[in-house]
């Protein structure tokens, strides 16, 4: 142990002159340390990639059998009755859609605030950005508890709208982040040109800056959509889940993640199979959004 910690200081000076290709003891030791470290880096990368492939493999192996027509047209039924996931899929689409409709405009406006109002509200802006970053990593189950307390308890019942509200609290910080970053990339010359042509500030921001940044902003909204469509914890106490067909936002609503959660722990083989199919669907959707976004970004940067 002691030799290990002292070697770097000993080597610091001679490493200028020592021929590290040589065969002196110190050169060999340095070469070995370097090789071991390199090998460990390789091992870490390979290990984590293996985890990713293992997850994808298990999902496909267990879930591909359930990709039948029945799964998409039937609603969730008691075990043994050939149920599907139709209500869960539609419920997820409605809730994530509503969440983005509520959260994205707020996120956009806050992003604009952070990027464009620095001259007037500098200190406050730093604080808002800080809080937004905190919200980005806040435990999502607590977001669910919060909406439960302020929406579900006063209204007296669980609802899809409450679920969407909980998800929208997770959409906002993602959209804020990307909107601010993208607006800051818009060149000053464009702003000056708009102002010089007599446009008021709000038109300059909305129709020149935001328009120039629209691809990046859209990317942020897509990433937010991908993030919330897999969220389970915020929905447990807000939209609760629903075994029947329900598209009314005022009533409890099924969603894929919550259905997966309820089915995965069940003792019935057909329920667990459906849980895996749901998991495969949701992961495939999310990964596809992510890959599309990244490919799009890569193309634009070149």
């Amino acid at each position, binding site marked *: 142990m002691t030799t290990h910690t002292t070697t770097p200081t000993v080597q610091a000076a001679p490493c200028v002159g020592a021929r590290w290709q040589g065969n002196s003891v110190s050169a060999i030791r340095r070469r070995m340390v370097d090789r071991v470290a390199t090998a460990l880096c390789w091992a870490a990368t390979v290990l984590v990639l293996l985890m990713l492939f293992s997850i994808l493999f298990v999902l496909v192996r267990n879930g591909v059998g359930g990709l039948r027509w029945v799964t998409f047209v039937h609603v969730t039924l008691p075990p043994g009755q050939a149920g599907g996931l139709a209500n869960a899929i539609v419920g997820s689409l409605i809730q994530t859609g509503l969440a983005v409709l509520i959260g994205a405009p707020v996120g956009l406006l*806050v992003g604009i605030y952070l990027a464009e109002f620095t001259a007037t509200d500098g200190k406050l802006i730093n604080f808002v950005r800080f809080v937004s970053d905190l919200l980005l990593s806040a435990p999502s189950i607590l977001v669910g508890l919060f909406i439960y307390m302020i929406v579900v308890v006063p209204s007296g019942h669980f609802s899809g709208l409450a679920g969407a509200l909980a998800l929208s609290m997770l959409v906002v910080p993602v959209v804020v982040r990307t909107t601010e970053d993208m607006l800051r990339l818009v060149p000053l010359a464009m702003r000056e040109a708009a102002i010089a042509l007599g446009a008021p500030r709000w038109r300059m921001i909305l129709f020149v800056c935001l328009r120039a940044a629209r691809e990046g902003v859209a990317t942020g909204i897509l990433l937010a959509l991908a993030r919330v469509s897999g969220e389970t914890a915020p929905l447990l106490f807000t939209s609760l889940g629903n075994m029947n067909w329900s598209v009314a936002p005022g009533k409890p609503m099924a969603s894929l993640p919550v259905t997966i959660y309820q089915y995965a722990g069940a003792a019935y083989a057909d329920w667990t199979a459906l849980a895996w199919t749901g998991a495969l669907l949701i992961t495939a959707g999310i990964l596809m959004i992510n890959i599309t976004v990244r490919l799009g970004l890569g193309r634009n940067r070149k």
Partner: protein
Amino acid sequence: MERSATSPSALTGAAKGNGDAVFAAIVRFSAALILLGLGGMVAVMAWGARGAFARFGPGFVFDKAWNPVTQHFGAAAPMFGTVITALLAILLAVPLAFGIAVWLTEIASARIAGVIGTLIQLLAAVPSIIFGMWGFAVLVPFMAHYVEPLASHTLGRVPGIGTLFRGAPYGTGFLTGGMILAVMITPFICAVMRDVFLSIPAVLKESAYGLGMTRWEVVRRIILPWSRSSVVGGVMLGLGRALGETMAITFVIGNANHIGWSLFSPGNTIASLIALEFPESAVGSLKFSSLMAAGFLLMLISLGTLVCSRLLLRTKAAGR
């Protein structure tokens, strides 16, 4: 007079100035919503927790009991589980993330690093419930059949640290929970590390290589010292994520409200406790209030961690 005649905003007239004021008001209102969101979360948790704190006092934090029958609740066991699993996750994830970040920036060619980097980041996009199912289907049996029996027969006999590795090999427990969390947070920590590693001026590295340093020496003496505070910030960010994680942990933690010193013993975390017990507790009951109190504690722990993380990441960014 002269100024206003030449200033662009004066040319646009009163009506447009009004539009600006309205727009600014809307934008500021949205910003206030964000502050209200986080402030509201903390306030609502504290409000919901008042019953439990009034009944048990500050002792709630240190009380190991969680007994719905005798109406006696304490947060020590789930808090212990939360902290232990998150620390285990950090312990496992930091070397992995560091190795990958070094591989991506120093070892692989730019083209391959782009592809592999994207794959690693895809892991961050996988929803946490999927990690839970994978953990339950793959990792738990693997731990129960291979790792835990092997570890308790070898490491479990070593005096001192042996306690950590003894116990029935259920497969679920603190270690499995920590491992799942580690896989989940590695991409986050790795992304932060990779970004700082890439931001190091090439001249520094080139001169070090030019002086005859090996790759590892460059990483150890040039890259690490340069990026230390950002790396710590990234690690704290991962820790914050691990503390608040719910669905992945629920599947593999074993859900037992007790404090055990064996890494294989089943435990519980605050988030997992809330997910499991909240649906069975009536609004206004002592159990409900205790769960809110546990949630409040989780909020404090994770916000504290995230604040540290942001401060560390920000000071470095400002220093450039």
